[in-house]
């Protein structure tokens, strides 16, 4: 067998492979003889069909079979000979197999990029030290307070005013007749001034007292969001039952207890600040990583095989589909197709692949390994973040042996990053004000 390699670019090659005649004939003979034993042809007993008849009837099938098996075996040999590490599936366009003569075909393959050793030491990185500010905690508490506000009937006897919450019954009539879009609604809770129906409607409610009934007419504008109501005069009959006000709970231990499993306000504050801090740490880490990748890629740029990008892209799309499915919406509903996502995220995918390749190279270069202890720690961390007992996680991986290899690789990549960070110069910088505000 003869193989020659033609470079298309650094990650794409075409292999010209030639299989000698003897091998071809041998394979064909084998296939026909096998078929002769089993073929059922009218006029012949099974196994007694002469070869000429078999050839005539099954030539196409046999040739297709033999071609693919020839390609398979010769391709593997060719890879061994040429010592290429391919990714994805080779692209082969097999010509027709002739009964005599050698068989030639071309296979286009993509190989993972060959990298020079990476000089990863001595990067200068900037680390932004985000701090959790008291104001942020306050803001979070305020939000919590608002979420937990209750509506309470007001004690005093006064007419409704702006910003009051009112409990009303209403029914709208179009030209004196009940109208489906404004059917009778009872115990409707609304805030005057927010205008859930229309601002004019709210204005009419002001100065009504509990128990009051009122008839009035409202004109809906032409560009009203509900097309069925737009540009219509509707007369409403409204009964006001109750005026309510919003009562904010005090920010104290009681609130903390209600908000979750917190014993005291301090505990809640601590939880909030922990949460924020975690977010900041993550962000810091990400920014660091971002810098590292940028730096490394600028130090050793390389071409990427399309298949790797495609594979990564596939993962991204699947992830997106899953998250949409989780929220019970399909991608088509919001006007996305697999193709549009693929186009949008192609660069992201390429970037991610580059990162993986770089880290993979680094792992090789430094021959990093994961010891059993480290694996154990990694599993433990995962168990914590999923809130599941570590045994369960272990069980899962015991059943899925190939996943554990993947997980190990993730750990290795983490280790590689840590190695880079450890051997870099890190400059701490204070966060810029506007960035801090941008959070959330």
């Amino acid at each position, binding site marked *: 067998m003869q193989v020659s390699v033609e470079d298309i670019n650094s990650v794409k090659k075409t292999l010209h492979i030639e299989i000698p005649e003897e091998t071809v004939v041998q394979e064909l003979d084998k296939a026909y003889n096998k078929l002769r034993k089993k073929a059922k042809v*009218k*006029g*012949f*007993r099974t196994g*007694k069909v*002469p070869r000429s*008849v078999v050839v*005539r009837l099954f030539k196409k099938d046999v040739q297709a079979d033999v071609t693919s098996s020839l390609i398979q075996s010769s391709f593997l040999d060719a890879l061994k000979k040429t010592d290429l590490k391919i990714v994805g599936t080779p692209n082969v366009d097999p010509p027709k197999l002739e009964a005599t003569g050698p068989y030639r075909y071309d296979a286009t393959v993509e190989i993972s990029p060959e990298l020079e050793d990476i000089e990863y030491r001595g990067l200068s990185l900037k680390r932004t030290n985000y701090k959790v500010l008291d104001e942020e905690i306050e803001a979070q508490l305020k939000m919590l307070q608002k979420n937990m506000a209750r509506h309470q009937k007001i004690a005093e006897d006064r007419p409704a005013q702006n910003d009051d919450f009112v409990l009303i019954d209403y029914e709208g009539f179009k030209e004196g007749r009940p109208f489906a879009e404004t059917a009778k609604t009872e115990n409707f809770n609304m805030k005057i001034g927010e205008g859930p129906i229309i601002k004019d409607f709210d204005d009419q409610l002001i100065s009504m007292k509990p128990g009051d009934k009122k008839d009035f007419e409202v004109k809906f504008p032409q560009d009203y969001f509900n097309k069925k109501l737009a540009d219509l005069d509707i007369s409403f009959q409204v009964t006001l039952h109750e005026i309510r006000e919003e009562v904010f709970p005090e920010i104290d231990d009681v609130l903390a207890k209600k908000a979750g499993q917190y014993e005291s306000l301090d505990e809640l504050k601590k939880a909030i600040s922990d949460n924020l801090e975690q977010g900041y740490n993550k962000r810091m880490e990400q920014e660091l990583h971002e810098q590292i990748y940028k730096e490394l890629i600028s130090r050793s740029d390389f071409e990427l095989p399309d298949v790797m990008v495609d594979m990564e892209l596939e993962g991204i799309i699947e992830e997106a589909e899953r998250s949409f499915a989780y929220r019970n919406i399909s991608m088509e509903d919001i006007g996305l197709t697999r193709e549009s996502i693929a186009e949008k995220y192609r660069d992201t995918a390429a970037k991610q692949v580059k990162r993986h390749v770089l880290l993979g190279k680094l792992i090789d270069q430094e021959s990093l390994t994961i010891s059993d202890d480290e694996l154990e720690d990694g599993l433990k961390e995962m168990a914590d973040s999923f809130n599941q007992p570590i045994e369960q996680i272990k069980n899962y991986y015991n059943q899925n042996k190939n996943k554990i290899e993947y997980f190990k690789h993730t750990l290795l990549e983490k280790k590689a990053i840590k190695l880079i960070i450890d051997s870099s110069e890190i400059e701490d910088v204070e966060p810029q004000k506007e960035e801090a505000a941008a959070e959330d």
Partner: protein
Amino acid sequence: MMPHDVIKRPLITEKTSIQKEKLNQISFEVDRRANRISIKKAVEKIFDVNVDAVRTIQVKGKVKRRGLITGKRKDWKKAIVTLKPGERIDFFEGV
């Protein structure tokens, strides 16, 4: 009768394969009205060969029954054509 009307189809079975290998004979199903002479002419014309001899056989259709109902497959005529030595016919696209 046109040559293609005379010869309906070649018969390819174990028996005819052996005859072909050993005796250089080819078998056909032919029109029942055809005789040896017209078969010889038809074969020579269609396959562009020289025919040495033709033998014909009336094949009786088998009687087939399914329960009480009996039926009969149609009778047909078989022709065994011997080619002159050195001649051969390569099949087949069906005639």
